[in-house]
């Protein structure tokens, strides 16, 4: 099984990219996580551009289509989903009937430097994913106080948090099994 990991942050030292890498250390056996790194290459969603099939968009759609499930790690800007991530999901949702997110199991996690771990952005990302037709899990995984949340080697510093992330990823794995059955 292959999970496509999408970080909603463009920043080089992004906590959410670190969280994706922490997830890579918490996967069930036989599951691989592939990071998609094309967020900043995407043009702003524009129906006029759709006919031209920009390469960056095709890359996103292909990456989702090639994956068995999607894992999104989102920061939170002004209590909401970052514009870049929303833009990527808007592209990925087209066309509605056949978009690659349809029936794709999806899990949303998130990190923020404040107390609440992007919990509102996660909720809005789940809402958007559900609208695209993805099979988004209700599970939330907020990592607050992200400046101190990661160990030096890169994983989550708190063993309980690592355990919960492991459980959430196992849930995503099960969701994929159900879709595939």
């Amino acid at each position, binding site marked *: 099984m292959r999970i496509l990991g999408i970080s909603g942050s463009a920043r080089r030292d992004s906590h959410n990219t670190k969280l994706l890498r922490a997830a890579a250390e918490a996967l069930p056996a036989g599951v691989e996580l592939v990071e998609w790194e094309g967020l900043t290459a995407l043009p702003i969603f524009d129906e006029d551009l759709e006919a031209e099939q920009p390469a960056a968009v095709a890359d996103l759609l292909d990456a989702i289509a090639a994956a068995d499930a999607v894992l999104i790690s989102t920061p939170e800007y002004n*209590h909401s989903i970052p514009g870049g991530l929303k833009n990527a999901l808007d592209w990925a949702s087209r066309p509605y009937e056949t978009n690659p997110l349809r029936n794709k199991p999806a899990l949303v996690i998130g990190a923020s*430097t*404040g*107390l*609440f*771990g992007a*919990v*509102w952005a*996660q*909720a809005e990302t789940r809402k958007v994913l559900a609208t695209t037709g993805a099979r988004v899990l209700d599970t*939330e995984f*907020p990592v*607050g106080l992200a*400046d101190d949340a990661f160990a030096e080697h890169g994983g989550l510093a708190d063993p309980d948090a690592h355990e919960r992330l492991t459980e959430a990823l196992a849930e995503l794995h099960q969701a994929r099994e159900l879709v595939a059955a």
Partner: protein
Amino acid sequence: MSTATTPFTGTYTVDPVHSSFGFAVRYQGVSVFKGTLAEVDAKLADGKLEGVAQVESISIKSPAQFRAHVLSAEFFDASSHPQVKFVSENIELGDDGTAKVDGELTIKGITQPVSATGTYAAPAADAFGNTRGHLNLEAQVDRTQYDMNWNAPLPSGGKALANEVTLIVELSLVAEA
């Protein structure tokens, strides 16, 4: 239980290095956030305890946005109310080492009665030639009574931040020579 501050006769001032004004508040339903105001000044004299803590000395240093929010008018309003104050003339120190302190706590310019309980250690000679005693107190307050009303509904239900806050005050008190 005796009802006096007898073990602490005379005047005691706080040792700021070994004293703190702490708080703990539940967030996201299950987690507890703890912090302190490190800069504390207090005096116990003739049965009256007076303490002041500097809001700017709060342990939340980073991220800047978090610190700014806590110091803003949604919480401490530190620029208008730089200090938290506590005054009590009602200190009961029991023979069993328990302490009960009823007083008035001022945060953000609002004064409310507060009842704290805890333990004390009677003054005794310390390793540095001082006479030192300890007072460790806990109290529950409702932050909304101090006009600290910020909150937000969680997507999973409930509120982001509890109204109940536990205050944990540790005072190391040194007798004035």
